[in-house]
């Protein structure tokens, strides 16, 4: 990859994303003005809706949890030079694993269900990623194509399972029965309540802490282990990797297994933490948002966390915006989210050159090469 201009680290990680975000918000403001609402009021509603109260913070972080999992999944594959577009399907199948454990082992104590649910989610997600990984490593089928196809196979499989097998008899909606109470994750408001901090009831649950732990785990694995080194070498130059005694095809499979496992954990938050049943289409595109989150977060867990919170905030703030401003309907909210992705992901180099020149002129020493 070529970088047109080098920026000092603080500008690279802080200033540039901020400018990109600002540009996206400015353009969104223009659009909101055009449809006849006040951009300032809209921005206020959105910010307030995302962070203004405990309830909104809870929802924002709840959405973010999904995006952390899928963002990490995309990032791990990316470091191995793979573009995993199958996060949605892996999350869907991973959720099936978690959900089955919660359905079947409802009579077990919570401390026994929890690890099994985590493992089942990870294993099911990894298994779904294994097939495209194997096809890429051994048969050369391009992983972008196979993973995206596997999303459709996953949803076909899940629809069939939910409509014909898992459905609670006698109801219209293709959903499983509800999990037993000890097969659900406690809400963060209950946990905080136990240590004496009052918090409004929101879907934010223990899975958020799992997501943070997963971020730390990914950081250690990718940057602090021999395997992570092999992963990054294979990703950047597979010829050099072979020369160094690393087998890129094996790395491909291992990276995709980890990637699928991370995406598969989404079910912890969505099913075990919030919906308490298996239902249709619960990943709701989080696998795709994960791509934007990983790109924006520069494929680093810290960056992914902030990017995931941003997208969680856009989702929650956007929903509040359309709740309070009927003229800003849900499609408008998608436009705003799209603009943020466009500026922060696709057009990130637009401001890079001018910013580098500017900083070089006023900052002196940091010259653009």
């Amino acid at each position, binding site marked *: 990859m070529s970088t047109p201009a080098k920026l000092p680290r603080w500008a690279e990680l802080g200033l540039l994303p901020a400018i990109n975000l600002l540009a996206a918000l400015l353009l969104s403001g223009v659009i909101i003005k055009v449809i006849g609402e006040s951009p300032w009021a809209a921005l206020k509603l959105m910010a307030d809706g995302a962070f203004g109260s405990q309830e909104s913070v809870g929802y924002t972080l709840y959405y973010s949890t999904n995006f952390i999992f899928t963002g990490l999944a995309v990032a791990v594959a990316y470091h191995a030079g793979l573009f995993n577009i199958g996060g949605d399907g892996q999350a869907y199948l991973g959720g099936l694993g978690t959900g089955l454990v919660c359905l079947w082992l409802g009579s077990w104590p919570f401390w026994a269900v929890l690890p099994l649910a985590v493992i089942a989610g990870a294993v099911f997600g990894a298994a779904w990623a294994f097939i495209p990984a194997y096809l890429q490593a051994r048969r050369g089928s391009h992983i972008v194509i196979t993973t995206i196809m596997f999303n459709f196979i996953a949803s076909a499989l899940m*629809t069939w399972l939910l409509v014909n097998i898992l459905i609670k008899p*006698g109801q*219209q909606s293709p959903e499983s029965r509800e999990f037993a109470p000890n097969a659900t994750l406690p809400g963060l408001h209950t946990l905080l309540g136990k240590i004496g901090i009052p918090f409004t009831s929101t879907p934010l649950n223990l899975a958020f802490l799992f997501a943070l732990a997963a971020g730390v785990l990914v950081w250690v694995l990718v940057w602090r282990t021999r395997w992570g080194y092999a992963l990054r070498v294979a990703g950047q130059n597979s010829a050099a990797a072979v020369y160094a005694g690393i087998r890129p095809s094996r790395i491909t499979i291992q990276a995709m297994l980890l990637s699928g496992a991370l995406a598969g954990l989404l079910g912890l938050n969505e099913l075990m933490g919030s919906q308490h049943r298996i239902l249709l289409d619960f990943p709701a595109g989080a696998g795709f948002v994960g791509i934007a989150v990983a790109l924006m977060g520069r494929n680093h867990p810290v960056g992914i966390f902030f990017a995931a919170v941003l997208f969680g905030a856009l989702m929650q703030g956007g929903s509040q915006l359309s709740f309070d401003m009927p003229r800003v309907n*849900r499609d408008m909210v*998608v436009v705003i989210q799209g603009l943020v992705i466009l500026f922060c992901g696709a057009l990130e180099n637009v401001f890079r050159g001018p910013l580098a020149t500017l900083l070089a002129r006023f900052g002196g020493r940091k010259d653009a090469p």
Partner: protein
Amino acid sequence: MFLLTGAAALVSAKDFLPAIVYDFGGKFDRSFNQSASEGAEKFKRDTGIAFREFEITNAAQREQIMAQSAKRGANIIVAVGFTQASAVEKVAKQFPNVKFTIIDAVVDLPNVQSINFREQESSFLCGMAAALASKTGKIGFVGGMDIPLIRKFALGYVEGAHYVNPGIEVFQNMTGTTPAAWGDPTKGAELAKSQFGRGADVVFHAAGATGIGVMQAAADAGKLSIGCDSNQDYLHPGSVLTSAVKRVDVAVYKAFEDAKNGTWQPGQLVLGLAENGVDYSFDEHNRTVLTPAMKQRLDQARADIVSGKLKVSEYKP
């Protein structure tokens, strides 16, 4: 926290405030959700009372938006679509003083009204109409997703067709496996075309906005289509045989009106042909294709279903 107490204070200050939460299809699907939206709009026109509305984009929003509407003083919340059942169940428990009406599902709580339709009855009549109009002895059905509700439509349709012509062949296709299947007119058109290619000359859709494509394909190919949920005869006059109308608009209007007048009752309502909850459509747009002879057969069957002489099976998941 101050936001919450502020909202609570608003509740007592506000007068009657109805709210409606649409499903994934969105209020402009020209079908199920749109019908609900028309009912709400009509209520607004007639009474001058504004309502709150929301189109959801993900599962968690259902609960969030319903709870928020309740907090902001909504007296009645209409939830459109069976997917909202679990959210209604949760939120209705939290807000026992707010009235909830759910369409296409059953939630058994003292402050919830569940409205269901016997879609199989109108589908039966549409199946009859298709069989009567078909010259090839082959008809088609395009569903959105393979879910119980759509199987209900399909089963009634097939039964009705066989009632007229036991030897008729019915092709069935589903559009997809994700909710995108409700909004994919291109694929709807492709499925209809493939059914025409296999010899069908009438096609019935139960696929939300996807059906727009089905009906367009029928109009383009000079074949007949049957609309769904809303009266869609006007879309392609002369090519739309009839529509399986589901009066979601009436249900929404009535829920709002009853809540306003204090006559709203919780419990289950099942609306079929007898209650005018479902029907086949007949108006100036399909007069040329739905002949008097056909209409006579349909009306006879309609009367028989209402009187109980003719039994239509219902798909049970």
